[in-house]
């Protein structure tokens, strides 16, 4: 078991030395008091999320842990390069899938995995997007198992969320623990909104003016990530629009303002493909804009992320990522992939069925920790139920070994104890370059021994510190 503070041997690692001292000095009740202060702050500013299927808890706070997670500059260097490489490959792959399809013809990714995939969008075939960038905002989930190795757990290439927590967590830490910051040089993350805006402006359609109009499209106040949408719109200084605020006329998108219609050039959309345009996708969607796809295809408006990027972050496609990186960039992947059994292949399926109690089984299109089986934690009934599911619909599942995720000291009821963590850094791809703010969202599984960090399943968050130099 690798602990990010105490390593595998129990000796404090250099990046954590000061924190370890500090934790030894600070009285427990002070930590507890600060923790409650943080909770009060989060509730006041309304940073909540909704849990689907739980009417009692329509708005809940994500627990915030006051002990930061620290990455040394050298560790961040590895991550930074690996993330850049990964996202470049993802963009090249999506362009190829909707274009020349070389990777399919080379037999590296199977055709049916692409064409029979519900997230594949035939509307995007042969469609040009500005500067060949499809995934402008990616949230790559990273875990580690020892001092050297970082694994990618998931590539979120559709509408990844969580960046508001990265920003708010830092803000609250700066308020609550100024003395701790005086002992460390922590790289700032507060410039993320500026970097995001620069990215979004850089991909405006060629017909846009020098100062393109950017908007953020949200499904509305009842969406679980609504707080983040409004938070980001505010920091970006752009309008937060819902589908009904936009209208398409002659393949141009306008927003309804108090001064009449105003043209929109770039839409940072946090609405899924399915709901974007009822004329093309789900006809029952009231969240989208009728005619949006037509305007998009005419090149009069840019969507970030592009339509159809799900074809890259599908969990079955995930298993091909190392090959995808090699195919497009001719480089060895810097970040590892977790070994993955694709249940669509019969040999893999029988292995999974035989070893299910040691594996994590995930739905190919699942997210948020829903519909997932953790073999070692499951009872007989659950295992049997999953075996049946696997047999009836093998394509829908992948399986992975249970990784010994790293832990990080965390405030829990019995004091300070190690808990498993992951990391979601955010990668921005614009016309000019790729931007990655040093840091990300660290999620922590608050239950002892639990590996599930999702906020919908009782996970919390931590501030992530990347040390400067």
């Amino acid at each position, binding site marked *: 078991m690798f602990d990010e503070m105490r390593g595998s041997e129990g000796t404090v690692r250099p990046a954590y030395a000061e924190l370890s001292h500090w934790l030894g000095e600070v009285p427990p009740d002070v930590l507890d008091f600060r923790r409650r202060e943080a909770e009060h702050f989060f*509730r*006041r*500013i*309304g940073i909540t999320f909704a849990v689907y299927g739980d009417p009692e808890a329509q708005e809940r706070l994500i627990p915030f842990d006051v002990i930061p997670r620290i990455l040394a500059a050298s560790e961040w260097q590895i991550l930074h390069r690996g993330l850049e490489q990964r996202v470049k490959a993802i963009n090249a792959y999506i362009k190829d899938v909707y274009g020349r399809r070389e990777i399919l013809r080379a037999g590296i990714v199977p055709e049916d995995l692409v064409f029979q995939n519900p997230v594949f969008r035939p509307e995007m075939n042969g469609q040009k997007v500005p500067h060949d960038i499809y995934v402008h905002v990616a949230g790559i989930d990273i875990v580690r198992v020892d001092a050297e190795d970082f694994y990618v757990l998931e590539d979120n290439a559709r509408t990844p969320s969580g960046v508001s927590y990265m920003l708010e967590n830092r803000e609250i830490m700066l308020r609550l623990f100024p003395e701790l910051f005086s002992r460390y040089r922590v790289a700032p993350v507060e410039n993320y909104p500026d970097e995001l805006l620069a990215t979004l402006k850089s991909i405006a359609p060629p017909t846009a003016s020098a100062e393109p109009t950017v908007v953020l499209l949200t499904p*509305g*106040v009842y969406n679980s990530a*609504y707080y983040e949408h*409004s*938070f980001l*719109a*505010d920091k970006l200084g752009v*309008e*937060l*629009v*819902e589908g*009904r*605020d936009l209208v398409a006329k002659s393949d141009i998108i306008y*927003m*309804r*303002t*108090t*001064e009449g219609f105003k043209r929109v050039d770039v839409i940072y959309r946090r609405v899924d493909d399915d709901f974007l345009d009822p004329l093309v996708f789900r006809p029952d969607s009231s969240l989208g804009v009728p005619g949006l796809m037509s305007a998009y295809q005419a090149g009069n408006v840019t969507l970030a992320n592009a339509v159809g990027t799900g074809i890259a972050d599908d969990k079955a496609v995930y298993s091909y990522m190392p090959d995808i990186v090699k195919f497009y960039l001719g480089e060895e992947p810097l970040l590892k992939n977790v070994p993955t059994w694709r249940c669509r292949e019969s040999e893999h399926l029988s292995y999974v069925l035989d070893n299910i109690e040691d594996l994590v089984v995930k739905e190919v299109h699942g997210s948020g920790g829903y519909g997932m089986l953790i073999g070692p934690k499951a009872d007989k009934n659950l295992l049997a139920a999953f075996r049946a599911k696997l047999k009836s619909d093998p394509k829908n599942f992948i399986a992975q070994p249970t990784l010994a995720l790293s832990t990080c000291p965390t405030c829990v009821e019995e004091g300070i104890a190690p808990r498993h963590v992951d990391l979601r850094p955010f990668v921005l791809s614009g016309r000019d370059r790729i931007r990655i703010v040093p840091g990300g969202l660290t999620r922590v599984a608050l239950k002892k021994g639990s590996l599930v960090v999702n906020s919908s399943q009782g996970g919390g968050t931590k501030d992530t510190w990347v040390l400067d130099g």
Partner: protein
Amino acid sequence: MLSRTADNLYWLARYVERAEYLARILDTTYRLTALPLTYVGTSNEWESAVATAGCASAFFAANSEANEETVTEFLAFSTDNPSSIRNCFETARVNARSVRTALTIEMWDTINGAWLELQKWGNGPRSREEFARFLRWVQESSLRFDGSAYRTMLRNDAYWFSRLGVFIERADNTARILDVKYHLLLPADERVGGPLDYFQWAAILRSVSALTAYHWVYRENVKPWLVGDLLMLRDEMPRSLASCYENLVQNLDRLGSAYGRQGNAQRQARAVRARLQNSRIEEIFQTGLHEFIDDFVEDNNQLGTAIAQQYLM
């Protein structure tokens, strides 16, 4: 600015104003019912409270009798009455969440804080004392919201739209009180000056927090036509119809000049203001107070529609 944002700001302000008004009505009704019957007559004050709140038909669809319990529940805590104090805060907060970016931290804090506090009141207070505290709290929340808007908002269209909401709602509320109680103001009534009317008039003034103001303006005993004058025509009285329209015209003018365009809303507001400016209280009483108020409420609604058509959709 997005039309929807303007719409949310406008309604946010209206709902907060409405919650305060409901709290005032309830407060006043409690005071009246606390008086011996000979002072207030035999009329059912609770029924009158429902009428003043403008939801008599909805109330009697759900309740057979208007009494302390049913009216308090309906006006303050009901989840079925869309204009209960609880729902006003709920709706205000939904509106506020949709326009987080257009609000200052202080305004959001007030609305969100009020909403959180409201959860603590659960199904309502257990005693009259507690209820009195609740009503005070509602009024304080509204004052805090108004104050934080006044002190922290940029003076741009967002501010002007929220002000329009306040004054349209306030004008409607004042007119409604006068309408329900208009029979009390008719000077032809025999019992003018009797204790019954005195307390009723005082109650009207109190429900728009104008009792002290009345004495300062007129330095006289409470007289019905002066009450009418104060609440309709005196523009130094912040809840009077005249003052509301002074503010509506000003804020619409600011919008008009910022956007470089005037429209129906501006014309309608100026027309109503002119009518109020040219009216004398004696003439209003002669030609019929009820008719005058009826016309005003209609005009006020029309202005609401004109604002919506011009800016909010």
